[in-house]
């Protein structure tokens, strides 16, 4: 189910701290990836700030100033993180009520949910909330392991239509009806 073997995907293995095996797991290599992303964001922020004009005459703080400071700070922090990682620093994943950190990351479920979210973004303006909301709920519940997809779809439809009317009529927030214009 999951890629708990993890040799191919280093980021797929969560630090097995607290488990019986206390072998040195080596550096948390996925953190280098995080450091790289941070450095890119920081560098981009600095470049973006450099492209700004001088601002209004009465602006004591130029629009670019904060960008320079924050961008450079991000780059610096990225370097520090990379150094810490090389010296054996490991990230500790967040625990929670339904979280089981002893298992590897379940990439299949994650990819499924990402797919559902992307589909939601692509369809929401066209089909409207009542349809997309139902698909979103049913898709997410199915991906998360409930295989009764007909029942999921029914629950999703009830939820999305009820929330549409609740927002439109009850709260006065006019969510566009989308493809069901005239039906709802």
């Amino acid at each position, binding site marked *: 189910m999951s890629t708990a073997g993890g040799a191919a995907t280093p980021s797929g293995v969560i630090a097995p701290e607290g488990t019986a095996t206390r072998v040195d797991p080596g550096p948390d290599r996925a953190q280098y990836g995080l450091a790289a992303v941070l450095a890119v964001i920081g560098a981009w922020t600095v470049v973006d700030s450099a492209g700004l004009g001088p601002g209004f005459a009465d602006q004591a703080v130029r629009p670019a100033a904060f960008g320079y400071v924050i*961008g450079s700070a991000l780059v610096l922090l990225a370097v520090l993180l990379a150094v810490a990682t090389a010296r054996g620093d490991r990230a500790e994943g967040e625990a929670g009520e339904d979280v089981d950190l002893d298992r590897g*990351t379940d990439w299949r479920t994650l990819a499924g949910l990402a797919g559902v979210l992307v589909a939601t973004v692509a369809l929401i303006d066209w089909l409207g909330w009542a349809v997309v909301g139902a698909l979103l709920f049913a898709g997410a519940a199915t991906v998360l392991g409930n295989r009764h997809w007909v029942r999921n779809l029914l629950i999703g439809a009830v939820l999305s239509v009820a929330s549409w009317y609740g927002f439109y009529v009850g709260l006065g927030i006019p969510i566009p009806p989308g493809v069901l214009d005239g039906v709802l």
Partner: protein
Amino acid sequence: MEALLEGLGMALQPENLVYAVVGVLLGTAVGVLPGIGPAMTVALLLPVTYNVSPSAALIMFAGIYYGGMYGGSTTSILLNTPGESSSVITALEGNKMAKTGRAAQALATAAIGSFVAGTISTVLLVALAPTVAEWVVVLGAPSYFALMVLALIAVTSVLGSSKLRGFISLALGLTIGLVGTATGQARLTFDNPLLADGIDIVVVAVAIFAVGEALWVAAHLRRRPLEVIPVGRPWMDREDWRRSWKPWLRGTAFGFPFGALPAGGAEMPTFLSYITERRLAGRHRAEFGKGAIEGVAGPEAANNASAAGTLVPLLAIGLPTTATAAVILAAMQGYGLQPGPQLFEAEPELVWTLLGSLFVANTLLLVINLPMAPLWARLLRIPRPYLYAGILFFAVLGAYSVNFQWFDVALLGLFGALGFAMRRFGLPVLPLIVGVILGPRLEEQLGQALQLSQGDVSALWGEPVAVVVYVVIAALLLGPLVLRLIPGRQEPEQLEDEIGALEDEVRS
């Protein structure tokens, strides 16, 4: 006093009372769901309050806030898996009590203790906040700038185990806060007109709290169901009362000051309260680790008192010090209200209604939740696929209802991925959220300060309050370093280790 009575009168009007009941019910119902803390509860329920009047919305928030807190403690007592750091201690003793058949008493002492602590703290809040606001209102931009820097540094470096990760999170939040054309020039907008107004904090908060959490849980979903302890109607006998009332009061005494300080948080006072109760338990000391009622009563009171204390800096200065306070601040800004000293002068009716409704929400919590505890316990059995599909559903609905654009939903997904990554890499969420909110205001205050002084930087330490605040900041940053040089002294970072050790000790 008169103003408070007026506020109470407002909050007790039938219509507002309905809002308070709805808030308490929604807050508890959502907060009791596993994996949902108070901050996510408030963020997810934000859209519900979009179209009601600001005072009605604030009344609902009071209910949602306290309800969410109470729901969290129910979860940790009945499931033994605290959703957030401040209920770790409650779970320690509370779950042990529940396992020995005293779940009803554990829930009762938590609920009544929260009520006692909440009421006392709200009285303190009412007494303190206007006074603080009066002091603060005379401060100039340099002092505000210093206070905001203090809040940012405090939430970043005092809480959490890794300062490096705290600052990474803060820097990311400040970067998100840069986006937009607030300064007259388009920063980080990628020439996209949809980003010109900046990124809506509601979208960021819902994404980081709800979507990030749902994705993170989905990747590590516990496949075997958790054991939920059945519970009857909460009650306590005379002995339980005798053993509970002092811990409630002591917990309140720990919780409120910690909440009211800009470096607040509920983790430290709950921990201190637990240690104190264990030390003072006398002949009941042997019960600690096996379900001592004092160990639930004290920390729960501390937790709630600190939640009320958080509202002092939030309302009087406009500084959020917890994730929940940050979301409430964002919501108030959404109504065009700017928390801070001016709020007391500009909208006295609103402020006093909010303060009055805190008392009402607190009382409702007790009246509603004691009889309804068995019902809430059943919510813990909701199938996980439905729970997390539902969280995603309402998160998307919340983001979409901001502007009815696919673009906001796309941002939600993007920041949801960031939220997932933050949980994977142990980056704390609070500095990011506070950074997004305070970043632009920090820039504004700096601009004002330098404009008045015509670019003279020394104006920044030209006010005595600013100087004091900078000294505090220096102490916060350098203190741990100095302590580390003194052998044998405790470092603040050891708090987490100590909680961990305590947990191991109690669980084994």
